[in-house]
């Protein structure tokens, strides 16, 4: 087995070792069935996360010359419990101590960076005034995800209050989709130049892997070049920018000399930027979805804050500004806001322990309704979407025992009981230690804590002696914050 490379080094290998590069792994974390195989070695998304975190840890330790065993880890606002647990396991395997790990949501982290920068500029002139509560929509478009959240932000003296009003479920949309649109376009160009139908190019998967990997790298390079050259030049009438390159030995020994202009590229990605576009997914729909969840119209949003590498691209920014009919906040580096925010969180958290000033309060919310399925009946609501942490509720006698030796609890999440996208979060079998008469009611206690963990306990109602220790424990069910 050869060496393993992490980060930019790995990314740079996409065109030579295209079939040995794992990326977008965060998209799959928490999915136990996803495994990459390279040279007979298997990698789960958790393994990949462990490796990334180990490198990050080693880098920080080298820089400070001391051991680091704690971390503030940011996760997309839409991560569900399995995804967070899996990330936590990866961090533990990487050598971090469980009780020194803090998970915060990425939009919250980004907001901390914004607030901090605003505070710094406070003395000079305040650009965005948070002394009165403001509704901020955070739009985060990264490599593989698009996360939208709406927060209520308030600064009171030195205290920051961040209240999540609504968050969007994880969306399978990210920079990689913007890459593929350009790749398909270049393939069209190639097929015209060589007079072949690219859809008929041999179906050898390996060849396709090579072609798609190499071209997607090119498109990414082109896009980043467009970003750097066209900043400031926006709207109709700006000059076009052209990216040119030549790929040796591209296909059947032939090279591919190509060019793509910003205008061409923008045409390619239009469906991803247009509401109700023919693709069935785009960056506007998640925004509308989140507004709906929060029961807000776009005019209710005071500020739109852009985060994630893809929002550095002017065409993406303009699409969002057009939708809202106003300028977005995008003067911070969208690639680093989240990471800076995590560091700031730690700073405020430590402050909180020492002095009573500079507190930061975050109120997470449950992203979707959570139901308990009931046999022969409709599911019953356990926690409703928008419920704020900390939360605790006992549902007395919510289900009845249907089998003397145990009961199966199915936990679902969705927008309503008729939601076609209803997910089964967990299915847990509770086995009774003593035989229980069918028909005996079961009670369930739900807690949702500030660490975004939803926890359930169940017991035979009124039977304290026989209280079943039905802890969902680490195997908790929970929906996504």
């Amino acid at each position: 087995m050869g060496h393993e490379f992490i980060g930019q080094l790995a990314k740079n290998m996409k065109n030579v070792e295209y079939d040995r590069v794992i990326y977008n792994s965060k998209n799959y974390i928490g999915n136990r069935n996803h495994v990459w195989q390279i040279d007979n070695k298997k990698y789960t998304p958790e393994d990949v996360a462990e490796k990334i975190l180990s490198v990050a840890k080693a880098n920080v330790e080298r820089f400070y010359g001391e051991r680091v065993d704690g971390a503030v880890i940011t996760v997309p606002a839409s991560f569900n419990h399995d995804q967070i647990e899996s990330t936590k396991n990866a961090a533990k395997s990487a050598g971090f101590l469980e009780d020194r790990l803090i998970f915060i949501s990425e939009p919250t982290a980004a907001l901390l960076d914004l607030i901090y920068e605003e505070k710094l500029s406070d003395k000079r002139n305040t650009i965005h005034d948070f002394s009165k509560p403001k509704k901020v929509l955070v739009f985060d478009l990264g490599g593989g995800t698009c996360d939208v959240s709406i927060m209520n932000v308030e600064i009171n003296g030195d205290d920051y209050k961040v209240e999540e009003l609504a968050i969007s479920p994880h969306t399978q949309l990210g920079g990689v989709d913007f890459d593929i649109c350009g790749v398909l376009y270049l393939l069209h160009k190639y097929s015209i130049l060589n007079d072949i139908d690219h859809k008929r190019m041999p179906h050898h998967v390996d060849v396709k892997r090579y072609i798609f990997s190499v071209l997607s790298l090119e498109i990414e390079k082109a896009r980043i070049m467009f970003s750097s050259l066209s900043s400031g030049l926006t709207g109709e009438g700006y000059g076009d920018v052209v990216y040119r390159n030549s790929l040796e030995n591209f296909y059947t020994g032939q090279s591919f000399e190509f060019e793509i202009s910003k205008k061409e590229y923008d045409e390619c990605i239009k469906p991803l930027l247009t509401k109700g576009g023919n693709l069935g997914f785009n960056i506007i729909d998640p925004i509308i979805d989140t507004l709906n969840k929060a029961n807000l119209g776009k005019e209710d949003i005071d500020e739109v804050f852009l985060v994630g590498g893809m929002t550095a691209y002017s065409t993406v920014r303009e699409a969002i500004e057009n939708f809202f009919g106003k300028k977005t906040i995008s003067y911070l580096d969208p690639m680093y806001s989240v990471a800076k925010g995590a560091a700031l969180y730690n700073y405020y958290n430590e402050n909180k322990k020492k002095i009573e000033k500079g507190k930061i309060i975050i109120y997470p919310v449950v992203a979707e309704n959570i139901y308990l399925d009931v046999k022969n009946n409709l599911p019953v609501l356990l926690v409703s979407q928008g419920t704020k942490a900390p939360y605790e509720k006992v549902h007395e006698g919510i289900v009845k025992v249907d089998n003397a030796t145990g009961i199966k609890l199915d936990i679902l999440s969705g927008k309503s009981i008729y939601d076609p996208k209803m997910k089964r979060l967990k299915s847990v079998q509770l086995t009774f230690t003593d035989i229980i008469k069918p028909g005996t009611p079961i009670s369930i206690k739900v807690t949702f804590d500030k660490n975004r963990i939803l926890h359930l306990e169940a017991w035979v109602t009124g039977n304290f002696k026989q209280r079943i220790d039905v802890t969902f424990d680490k195997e908790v069910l929970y929906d996504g914050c």
Partner: protein
Amino acid sequence: MMAVNWRALLQENRDLFFNIHNEEIKEGKGYLGAAANAEKVESVKEQVFEYYISDVNARLIYEKNA
């Protein structure tokens, strides 16, 4: 190398070039990087359907929706 007047070609064939389909993107994403043996995530709708169909809930839901 053939000289192509891309500008004209693009104008005449906008649909061919810019009408991208969902499946093409999905398929393309599958070709990026190392291969994964990921089981296709079952369509949630199907999952839910299967789940309910085995149960009286199917009837209840049908009635509610009808």
